C-alpha cells in the first residue's frame, strides 16, 4: 500500500471504485474468493482488504451480506430470509449420528486422528463415516502427526465453514466453554502408558495453530 505513489502509471483507482469491483467479483460467483484472487483480478495497486471493509459495512443489515469464510470472502443471503428461498433449498442427505459426532469431534479437536475420534466415541469409526465427511468436503486430511506410526489427522475445510456460516474454526459455538471445562484436553486414561500420553499432548499444542488475530476487515474500522 505504501509505495503505490512510486509508479504513477499504475495509480490505483479510488477506493470507492475498488469497492465496486470487489462487489462485482463477489456477486458474480457462488464460491468464496480470497484476497490474493481479488488482487489478481483487480487493477494493479488495489487494496482489496480495504475495499472489503467498506463493502462489509455497506451490506450490514441488507438482504445480502458479506461473510468471511476462513481466509476467503463471499456474499450470502441474510439467514433470516431463508424462508423466501424454499425453492432454492437443497436437500442435504441426513447425516447419521455417528457422522455428526465425528464431524463435531474433528471440528473441536482438530487436527485429530482416527484413534482420537474412536477414543472419544468409545467405538470404532467406520470407514463410511469418514468417507461421507470427506465426500461432503467438510473434512480433509491434515498433516501427519509427529508421533509413532505418523497417523494422518483430519481437519475441517473452508466448505465446512461456508456451510455452517462460520468465519473461522475459532468461532465454533461453545468452543471457549468447552476448552475452559477441560473437555477438549487430550486427557489420558490413568492406566495408559506415558508414551501415548506424550503423543497426545501435541494434539493440543497444534490445535488452531493460526490462533492469532488475522485482522478481519469487517472489524477493521470499528475501533
Amino acid at each position, binding site marked *: 500500500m505504501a509505495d503505490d505513489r512510486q509508479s504513477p502509471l499504475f495509480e490505483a483507482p479510488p477506493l470507492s471504485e475498488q469497492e465496486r469491483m470487489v462487489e462485482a467479483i463477489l456477486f458474480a460467483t457462488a464460491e468464496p474468493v480470497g484476497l490474493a484472487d481479488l488482487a489478481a483480478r483487480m487493477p494493479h495497486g488495489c487494496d482489496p482488504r480495504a475495499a472489503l471493509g467498506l463493502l462489509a459495512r455497506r451490506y450490514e443489515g441488507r438482504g445480502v451480506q458479506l461473510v468471511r469464510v476462513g481466509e476467503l470472502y463471499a456474499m*450470502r443471503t441474510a439467514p433470516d430470509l431463508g424462508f423466501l428461498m424454499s425453492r432454492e433449498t*437443497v436437500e442435504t442427505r441426513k447425516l447419521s449420528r455417528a457422522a*455428526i459426532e465425528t*464431524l463435531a*469431534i474433528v471440528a473441536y479437536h482438530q487436527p485429530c486422528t482416527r484413534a482420537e475420534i474412536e477414543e472419544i466415541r*468409545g*467405538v470404532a469409526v467406520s470407514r463410511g463415516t469418514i468417507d461421507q465427511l470427506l465426500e461432503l468436503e467438510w473434512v480433509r486430511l491434515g498433516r501427519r502427526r509427529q508421533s509413532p506410526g505418523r497417523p494422518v489427522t483430519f481437519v475441517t475445510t473452508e466448505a465446512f465453514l461456508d*456451510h*455452517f*456460516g462460520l468465519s473461522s474454526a475459532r468461532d465454533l459455538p461453545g468452543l471457549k466453554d468447552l476448552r475452559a471445562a477441560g473437555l477438549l484436553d487430550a486427557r489420558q486414561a490413568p492406566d495408559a502408558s506415558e508414551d501415548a500420553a506424550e503423543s497426545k499432548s501435541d494434539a493440543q499444542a497444534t490445535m488452531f495453530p493460526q490462533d492469532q488475530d488475522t485482522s478481519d476487515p469487517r472489524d477493521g474500522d470499528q475501533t
Partner: protein
Amino acid sequence: MAEVTPLGGAVAERLAAEALIVDVEGFEGPLDLLLTLARTQKVDLRQISVLALARQYLGFVEQARELRIELAADYLVMAAWLAFLKSRLLLPPDPAEEGPSGAEMAAHLAFQLERLEAMRDAGARLMARDRKGRDFFARGLPERVERVRQVRWTATLLDLMQAYAHVRTRDDFRPYAMDREDVMTLDQALERMRGLIGFAGAWTDLASYLPGDWTGAPGRRRSAMASHFAASLELVKAGRIEIRQGESFAPIEIRRRDG
C-alpha cells in the same frame, strides 16, 4: 469423586435396563450405552455415581444374558472392566497394588462420559446452525469468469538468420535423405555375427568382426560398429555370447558362450 451410593431403586433400574435391551441395536457402543444409563441418574454428569453406573451397566448385561441377547464383544469388555472398577471402588485400597486407584479410574470414566456428551451437544448445535442451502444462500446466477487466451508470437533476429542459413545450406547436408549405401542395419550385422560367433572361443575385439569393406570410410565404419555392437547385445540377451569392456573407451570384446 466416585462416592458409593446406597443401592436404591433397583426395580426401576431393572425396568430401565429392559427398555434399553430392546433398543440395543440403537447404541453406538458401550460408552454410548453408559451415557444413556448415566442420564437415568438424573444428575449432572460431574456428580455422577460411577459405582451406581457400573452396577446399572452390569445389571444390563446380566439382563441381556437372561434374555439370550448376544452382546457385541466390546460391550462385554466394558462389563469386565466395570466389574473390576466396581471391586476397586468397594474394597479398601491395597497399598501394595500397582496401577491407578479405583477413584482415578472412575474419574476418568466420568470425564469420558462428559466429553462424549459435550461432543454430542456440539454436533447438535452445529447442525442447528443456519446452514447454506437451507437458511442462507449463495449466488444463484453466477457469472462465468471467461478465460481469454492471447497468443503472442515471437521470433528473434537470430532465429530469422538461423532459419535463413538453414534454408540456404539445406542442399549441403540433406538431413532427411537416408543414406542406404553407407548404413549397415542391425539385421545385417546380426546375420553376420550369427555366422561368425561359432569361432569366437576366446575374447575378441568386436572391431575385428567388422567386414573389410566397412572399415575404410569413417562413416561406414561407425555405422558398422554401431550395428555390430547392437547385434552383440542382442546375442548376449539370447545367451549366445558374453561381452566385456575393460574401461571407458577400451575395446569391446566378445566371446562365445558354451552350453
